[in-house]
């Protein structure tokens, strides 16, 4: 599973990454987590509003910090 967090390094983006890592730990899953800060890459993935969360090339959320339960649901589906 490949997880990408898209954001220019803002505090909301860091919060998103933290939630993803917590969800992975609670579900006992391992994944490749990458924090992408290049706006050109956001555009390529069609994420307009940051922070964006992409799981296995699918945009799961954008423009807000997702909550832990949602993220766990997405990760379970992708695992």
């Amino acid at each position, binding site marked *: 599973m490949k997880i990408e967090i*898209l954001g*220019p390094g*803002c*505090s*909301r983006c860091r919060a998103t990454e933290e939630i993803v890592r917590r969800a992975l730990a609670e579900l006992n899953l391992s994944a490749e987590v990458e924090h992408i800060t290049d*706006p*050109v890459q*956001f*555009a*390529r993935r*069609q*994420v*307009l*509003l*940051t922070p964006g969360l992409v799981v296995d090339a699918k945009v799961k959320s*954008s*423009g*807000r*910090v997702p909550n832990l339960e949602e993220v766990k649901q997405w990760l379970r589906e992708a695992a």
Partner: protein
Amino acid sequence: MSELLLAGLSALEDYVALHVLTCLVPAFLLAGAMVTFISRETILHYLGTQARKATAFPLAAGASFFVAACSCTVIPVSSGLYYGGAGIGPAFILLWVAPAANLLALIYTGAILGAEMATVRVVSALLMAFVVGAVMTGVFRREEEQRELAFAAGATETARPVATRGSLGLMVLLVATLLAPNYLVQSGPYLHKVYVWAAGTLLVALYAWRVKTRAEIVAWLKETWWFVRLIFPLLLAGVFIVGVLGALLPQAWIQTWLGGNGLLAAFLATLIGSVSYFATMTEAPFVDTLMKMGMGQGPALALLLTGPGLSLPNWLAIARVFGARKAVVYVITLILLGTLVGWVAGQFYFTH
């Protein structure tokens, strides 16, 4: 040294302490509500599909008010639209209007410099946006034609509404809470404003309790808290620096170089605004301090517009995302426009 410290602290007292309850708290709540309850995806989607039509320019300018509540988030939005197929005109209009006339900064400008300056700021920002959009479209015409062919495929429509009626009601109430303390209580002690603010806030809370679920209210307050955490420390630091600068800069310099409403003063104010970075909202106290030291109203307007809209870091980011040629055309156009708007407003509008 202690004198400078005192100047910084007194600026904090004047520009922040007096505005926290009646201006900043409702402003942050409104920004949070916009992020939570307005479907920005729907607005952007609509903008994407309409981007090739005549309505694209005003639509992009209007959407800018709702899409980004601070300048930090606008580059990904604008570049995303551009690479997703929107025209270069609408993309750069968004890039300009969102920071130059963003909601938080406008509310704060109104509270500190008065409603007239806030109004002139919005109108000028919009006028400049249309010129920037037209210039970018004209200069990169050939490139646009090729891009148009590449994006000829149609997009699908989404049915999600921009905002529900309950959400709209909530936002209207928040705007009323923002305006009421300053316009109902023109004179008298500050405490009267606080009463009006408290009544408004109580009304907002009751209304929210009725129309919104618990989860929605939690999400709204969380978003509001993000804005406070992001912007408030920068505002405090910025206002402190403004106070210190006000004490350091010799008044004679300000009067010589930025005084009056001449072309040179407008140009210098634009240049200062275009190069230096102003955290959202700090441009208002900076301009107020300089005006008290003798800066003319025309140059003040130019600085208010270009201060948050352009900065050296922002030039570099735009060059990286859109390419150096587009960044150069954009920045030069805005410096010329800022100078022109400052000069024209100073000569023909601010004549009283």
